[in-house]
């Protein structure tokens, strides 16, 4: 074969590909049909998001919404890269612990004018979640999409096997620890609880239950080394010390949630966002139930939620604003609720969400938990200081360093990050 005959088809193929790649972007005129992209991370919510996009286009035939799905950890690195490169999705999910650098870097679309114009009633959204995203600059970057609180998922079959009573509202830390111990059966390879190093679904809750704080009220220094906060962390290290939980290394090879689905751990503390995944797993659906978090000095759970935000660099700001209001609005809330994917932030869709998973009888605990919920600590560049947890707290979980020493060192590291962004 000569070089020419080899190259010709190659060039054609490449040309076709190039054409295919660039055909996605719509025109920039406001009246003509436009396509906007919606960046989300992969999971059980994708079908609901697709449905919301379709419903939006039905109302706004000129605007097509294309879902752009990313695996979770990569979602953030690619979002940052693409925002810096000018190719971020037009609309995307945001977390309170991540928003700071984007807002400070003017990467987010201010939608306050659209919210005013459309007379969106902000009272319909949980104030705690709205506050989490407030950057104190008088702008509004998005609206809450969902809200989460934490509770204890448990496996009834493992409780029955061990002859232990199911957890009840009002149970205490001591009850929890005792229950975890009783449920642990090394011979069968099952543990009472998973005690991973998890802030939102884990030790932040117990820090607040112990009357402690992660960050001091002034937002400038860490409070994670206070005696109360240390007590909250000891709640988890004790479970590790009791060997009531797989070690962190085991949980690193197989995530806690997977272990719970595999029936290897009896209790898993986490959010409402796992409900649908557990419900969809036929092998475990009938065995799963949920109870409120145990009470320490007081009752508490951290709360947060995803917000829908827009990219400041979008070519279609008006279309994006329209979509953001829709995606966090009542109709979208009902679509989300009906799918069971997540508890919508917009008030009034709770019943629909619970009815989506009729065999889970006690989902109400997540809604009741709102009453004693505490906003997720997200001061400063939260993603950065939260990212340091593994480095400083792993030795405490492993029992190699005392909680007091580990938290003292971690507090210093947090202080440094907070000072940098001060």
């Amino acid at each position, binding site marked *: 074969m000569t070089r020419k005959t080899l*190259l010709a088809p*190659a*060039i054609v*193929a*490449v040309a076709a*590909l*190039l054409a295919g*790649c*660039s055909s*996605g972007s719509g025109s920039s005129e406001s009246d003509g049909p436009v396509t906007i*992209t919606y960046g989300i991370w*992969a*999971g059980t919510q994708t079908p609901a998001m697709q449905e919301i996009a379709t419903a939006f286009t039905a109302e706004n035939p000129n605007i097509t919404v294309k879902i*752009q799905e*990313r*695996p*979770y*950890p*990569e979602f953030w690195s*690619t*979002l940052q*890269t*693409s925002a*810096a*490169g*000018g*190719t*971020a*999705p037009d609309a995307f999910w945001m977390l309170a612990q991540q928003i700071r650098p984007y807002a400070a870097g003017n990467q987010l679309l201010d939608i306050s004018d659209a919210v005013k114009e459309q007379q969106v009633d902000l009272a319909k959204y949980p104030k705690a979640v709205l506050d989490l995203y407030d950057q104190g600059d008088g702008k509004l970057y998005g609206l809450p999409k969902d809200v989460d609180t934490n509770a204890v998922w448990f496996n009834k079959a493992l409780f029955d096997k061990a002859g232990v009573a199911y957890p009840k509202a009002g149970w205490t830390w001591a009850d929890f620890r005792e229950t975890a111990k009783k449920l642990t059966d090394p011979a069968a*390879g099952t543990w009472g609880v998973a005690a991973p190093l998890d802030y939102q679904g884990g030790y932040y809750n117990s820090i607040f239950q112990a009357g402690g704080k992660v960050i001091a009220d002034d937002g400038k220094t860490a409070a994670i080394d206070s005696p109360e906060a240390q007590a909250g962390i000891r709640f988890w290290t004790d479970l590790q010390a009791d060997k009531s939980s797989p070690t962190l290394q085991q949980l690193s*090879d*197989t*995530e806690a949630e*997977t272990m719970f689905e*595999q029936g290897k751990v009896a209790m898993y503390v986490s959010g409402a966002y796992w409900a649908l995944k557990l419900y969809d797993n036929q*092998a475990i659906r009938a065995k799963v139930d949920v109870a409120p978090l145990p009470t320490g000095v007081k009752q508490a759970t951290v709360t947060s939620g995803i917000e829908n935000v827009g990219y400041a660099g979008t070519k279609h700001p008006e279309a994006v604003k329209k979509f953001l209001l829709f995606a966090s609005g009542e109709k979208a809330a009902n679509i989300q609720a009906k799918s069971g994917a997540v508890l919508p932030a917009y008030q009034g869709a709770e019943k629909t969400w619970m009815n989506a998973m009729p065999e889970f009888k006690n989902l109400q605990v997540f809604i009741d938990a709102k009453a004693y919920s505490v906003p997720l600590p997200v001061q400063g560049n939260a993603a950065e200081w939260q990212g340091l947890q593994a480095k400083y707290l792993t030795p405490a979980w492993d029992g190699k360093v005392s909680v007091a020493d580990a938290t003292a060192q971690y507090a210093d590291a947090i202080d440094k990050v907070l000072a940098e962004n001060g």
Partner: protein
Amino acid sequence: MTSRGAGQWRIHVVLIVAATLMVVPFGWEILTSFKTSNEVASLPPTLFPAEPTAGGFRTFFDKTPFLAQFLVSAGSLILRVAGQVFVAALAGYAFARLNFPGRRTLFACFLLMLMVPSQLFLLGQFDIMKGLGLLDTLPALAIPGIFSAFGTFLMRQAFLTMPKEYEEAARLDGAGTFRTFWSVMLPMARPMLAALAVLTSLYSWNDLLWPLIVAPAGDARPLPVGLAGLQGQFGTDYPTLMAGALICTLPLVVVFIVLQRQFFAGIANSGLKG
């Protein structure tokens, strides 16, 4: 070496044991891809799938735009290989056979580039692609790889070893420099061109870091990035992960089986250096 036949079986035993160690991971990958995730997590592990299922493959094809990613991988490979071979052959020829002021200095510059780790270029290359508005496009994946000091170096080696006579004959026939290069010398360099093409294909197909960075929005993500993402999404769903790994690996393995000779020649001539 016929006199050595007697001890051959001992060598074979060692080689077979070693080769088995090379192949076991692939065998395990294939077997696992047909199991259920519960079977994978059971102890002791089963060798053959108790209830063979294609569930892993189904999940993989459901969740991954395999064809699109394959086309991106293949398209950027073609672009990169064609460009690299062309650019490197031209420059390699000039450095090997032509006399011009500054030749040694310029070639030394090329060689210096070989030493520098590729990470050093990433930040700047990203800025360039961003500036050109090429992020998330196929050319962005391929362009930096087209210009490789290594390719030029390799082609120079090939042209150096060629006899002078052909060139002189062509010149006597009145052919200019470029014509001599194109119709006389380049065809003779075909083995090295093939070797370079094969090596470049290998780097292009396997590359993770650059596409991870330069295709953030994901319209132009090749297989390695897609596969890495699969792990982020299905962390411990090993049947799906193994099915994906298998499918993404297969195309190049098939090409390798067909073009073994070129692969080995490419490596032997040059070693692996991107």
